[in-house]
């Protein structure tokens, strides 16, 4: 048990360090990535001379990041003007002192124009600002798809904070997915109410969902939480299906990457953190503030234990985010390879496409697996943490005496 705790502790510390370094390296990366961008811009210019441009960076991040519209494809018109096939989405802004603004993202004209004193940041807008002589550091603070308050000249007003509550494509897709989830689940529940599956054999979707629910109850909730599992079943089921349906919808080509967005996973992580913390009992807090170790070690263990309260949900957040994001990026990268090679020469692009597609299909299949696995892991670990927070002292002891392995989460 002590070893298990040490293991979880080391994992937590390692995760935290990793996180710190990763943000640090991200910060360091920024100028680097900017130079990458510049280099790539040059490449694009070269490509432009040939007649076609492909910016993999833009494509990849355009796919995995949130956006204010569903963008499907762009093409050049006969007179060289850009056409975009998009579905504009509503924008909802709150600015202290000015109040709420609500309008369609089409008003921005693909980021080319300001509307009502707001402007969405795009690559061209940043270049525009650079031309205007704005400092690089300031420009770097403006992120793609961010909405900023601008003055009449179109330069951002840095001291005005705009709260962006827009219905972005992630939000829209999440709502669609959840509507389907709710309709599906309520229709299944209705069937059970009429006695289907109760007095007669279950039918259709009942057969698909029922084993999953039973799996979560028998393999996730019962072993981890114990006899109190019934209280947490609705939460665990909701978390599982919430993540699963969004994972699956994220796999539809051209759809948004909802579960690979840190905001989404952070929200779920915070929810599970709140549930874990508020369901924690005296024994759990006792273990944190007065761990059963010799007095001298307590000074080391107590901060570590306090840290572990936060590292647990934090690990959940990062795990789901990183897994889903990585899968999407790999698939897009593999597809982008075709176009990168195609830029070199059309023949190479065509020649490479079967290899690329084969890999993409392979990863896609894995991603379907991952969609289920990650939903399960998130739910399972939430159950494990709830179980740790609610377990009784004697129960714990009994487990240890019976040689049951401690349930320590070391799942990546």
């Amino acid at each position, binding site marked *: 048990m002590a070893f298990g705790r040490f293991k979880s502790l080391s994992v937590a510390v390692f995760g935290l360090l990793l996180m710190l370094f990763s943000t640090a390296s991200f910060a360091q990366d920024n100028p680097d990535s900017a130079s990458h961008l510049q280099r790539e811009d040059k490449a694009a210019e070269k490509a432009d001379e040939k007649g076609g441009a492909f910016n993999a960076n833009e494509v990849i991040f355009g796919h995995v990041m949130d956006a204010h519209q569903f963008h499907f494809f762009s093409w050049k018109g006969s007179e060289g003007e850009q056409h975009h096939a998009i579905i504009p989405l509503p924008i909802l802004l709150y600015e202290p002192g000015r109040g709420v603004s609500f309008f369609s993202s089409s008003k921005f004209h693909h980021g080319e124009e300001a509307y009502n004193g707001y402007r969405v940041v795009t690559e061209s807008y940043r270049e525009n600002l650079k031309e205007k002589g704005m400092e690089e550091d300031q420009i770097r603070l403006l992120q793609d798809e961010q909405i900023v308050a601008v003055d009449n000249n179109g330069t951002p007003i840095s001291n005005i904070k705009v709260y962006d509550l*827009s219905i972005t494509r992630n939000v829209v897709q999440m*709502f669609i997915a959840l509507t389907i989830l709710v309709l599906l689940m309520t229709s299944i529940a209705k069937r059970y109410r009429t006695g289907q599956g109760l007095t007669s054999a279950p039918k259709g979707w009942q057969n698909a969902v029922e084993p999953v629910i039973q799996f979560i109850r028998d393999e996730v909730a019962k072993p981890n939480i114990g006899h109190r599992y019934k209280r947490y079943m609705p939460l665990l089921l909701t978390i599982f299906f919430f993540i699963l349906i969004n994972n699956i919808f994220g796999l539809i080509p051209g759809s948004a990457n909802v579960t690979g967005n840190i905001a989404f996973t952070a*929200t779920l992580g915070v929810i599970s953190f709140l549930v874990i913390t508020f369901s924690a009992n005296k024994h759990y807090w006792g273990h944190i503030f007065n761990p059963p170790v010799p007095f001298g070690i307590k000074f080391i263990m107590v901060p570590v234990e306090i840290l572990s309260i936060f590292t647990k949900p934090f690990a959940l957040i990062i795990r789901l985010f990183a897994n889903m994001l990585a899968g999407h990026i790999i698939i897009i990268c593999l597809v982008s390879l075709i176009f990168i090679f195609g830029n070199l020469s059309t023949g190479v692009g065509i020649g490479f496409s079967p290899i690329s597609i084969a890999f993409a299909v392979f990863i896609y299949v894995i991603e379907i697996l991952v969609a289920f696995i990650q939903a399960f892991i998130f739910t399972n670990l939430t159950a494990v943490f709830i179980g740790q927070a609610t377990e009784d002292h004697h129960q714990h002891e009994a487990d240890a005496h019976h040689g049951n392995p401690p349930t320590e989460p070391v799942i990546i």
Partner: protein
Amino acid sequence: MRLLTPELGLIFWTALAFIIVFVVLRKFAWGPIMSSLEQREKNIAGSLETAERVKREMAQLKSENEELMAKAREERSAMLKEARDTKDRIVAEAKEQAKTEANKIIAEAQQQINAQKMAAITDVKNEVGKLVIEVTEKILRQQLASTDAQEAHIKGLINDIKLS
């Protein structure tokens, strides 16, 4: 929008959506589904238990029946045996009784025979006595017809008396 900085809007909408979905599904989906599953499991467990119980009861009934049958068979044989015994006893008793009766009759008959024999003998004795007396009388009459003979005889008698 950076990769690692959560956006406020998405956090807000996700939280809102999660809470709504949680509340709606808890009330309209998980509740009924979970309770139905539980009820069904309970039903199945109950049915299995009932089946097991019925099986046990059947087995018990069967064994009871067998026991009853065995008992009945035993009783029948016991009754047969008793009947046979009774018959034997009655026959024996009858025989015994007949025998004693017969013995009694025989004894009585013998007694009667003896009595009649005695009577007959007595009669014969009496007859013989009478005859002897008659014969003796006749003989005496002939022998003592003369007065000499009478006197000789009386003398003889008197001699006998003197001797004693």
